[in-house]
């Protein structure tokens, strides 16, 4: 367990659950998708992440499911029900903190015997505004999962770099032998992309029991884009620090 990062459990944490991770990243796809999931499935806050590597921030919310009005919350929180665990951050995770945080999340998931870890995120595409329906790509930590994604009709990301939370989720999950999947929708790089989040959620429903109606998410798209400007801006600064643009590079393996 990492000493610099601690997961504090508030309620019973289920075992054998699917763990969805949606940290701020490209187009905030993972964060928007996972937050929507939490709100639609009325998931309960079961734990939070504490670390001196994070800025000294608490967030006050009146509208959180099961929360007392206006009480402070940790920005990096874990929600759940009997079958599902969802991790979100309302804070752009500082680039140097992403390693211990992802390591702790994966190790905690392993301790809770999660069925699999699913990282939701975006793939930046330059011509996003010209794309009507973004495509979704999948990656997996083992061949069996990759075959499952392929059979479910998901495009497989065969070649390329992954950078950031999804990359570390995959790397640490392989180390710990925890099954892991990444679901990545084509999205804007630094504009919040609720449509990409909705499409990623549709694909998630094809490969899991997690099913939500995304129509409300699409309806609220403009409102989300207005509200998400600040966290997108700060996330962009952190993406620059973690060299996120390497995802545009072509890998070399001769």
């Amino acid at each position, binding site marked *: 367990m990492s000493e610099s990062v601690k997961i504090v459990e508030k309620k019973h944490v289920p075992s054998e659950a699917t763990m969805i991770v949606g940290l701020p990243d490209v187009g905030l796809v993972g964060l928007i998708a996972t937050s929507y999931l939490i709100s639609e499935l009325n998931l309960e806050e079961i734990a939070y992440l504490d670390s001196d590597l994070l800025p000294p921030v608490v967030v006050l919310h009146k509208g959180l499911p099961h929360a007392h009005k206006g009480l402070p919350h940790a920005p990096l929180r874990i929600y759940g029900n009997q079958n599902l665990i969802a991790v979100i951050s309302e804070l752009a995770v500082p680039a140097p903190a992403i390693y211990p945080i992802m390591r702790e999340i994966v190790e905690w998931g392993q301790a809770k015997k999660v069925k699999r870890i699913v990282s939701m995120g975006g793939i930046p595409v330059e011509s996003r505004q010209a794309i009507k329906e973004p495509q979704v790509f999948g990656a997996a930590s083992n061949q069996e999962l990759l075959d499952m994604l392929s059979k479910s009709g998901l495009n497989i990301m065969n070649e390329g770099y992954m950078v950031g939370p999804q990359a570390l989720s995959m790397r640490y999950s392989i180390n710990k032998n925890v099954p892991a999947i990444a679901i990545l929708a084509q999205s804007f790089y630094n504009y919040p992309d609720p449509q990409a989040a909705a499409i990623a959620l549709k694909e998630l429903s094809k490969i899991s029991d997690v099913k939500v109606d995304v129509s409300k998410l699409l309806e609220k798209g403009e409102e989300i884009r207005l509200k998400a*400007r600040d966290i997108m801006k700060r996330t962009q600064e952190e993406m620059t620090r973690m060299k996120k643009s390497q995802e545009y590079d072509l890998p070399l393996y001769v």
Partner: protein
Amino acid sequence: MSEKPRKRSTFDTMNEHLEEFDELADELMESAFPEGPSWNTETCCLQALSNVFITSREVIVTADLPNIEPETVKVEAVDETLIEITAKMKKKVRFADLGICHRQGEFSSLRCQDRVHVAVDAEKMKISFKGGVLEVRFPRKKRYEIEVE
């Protein structure tokens, strides 16, 4: 009777330099302290997210403009390298609409300013607006081609 052109005084030159200095200082302050809010209650503006891409032939500025009336989009070259984009929102947004009760103010437009760092020909700009994202393409003003011997 034609008016005799006034000779530029040393004070005119100094004023001009002082104005340039002020502009530079503003720019430096913006880059040194980017922590300012993304809203301005005096101008009733929310800051729009934007991007600048510079290619060898053109400069492409994009801006995320949710909740706006497309016909109110205004793109203005403040000077040869500073572009300002403004657009009126379909309906005003108050802090209270965003669930915030410890601040007061309402916003009626989105605005962004981008320094493009190369001279552009603003008169030949091409504008498109798709899915709430504005794209403005400016041809670059000067291109030098050196022939390879």
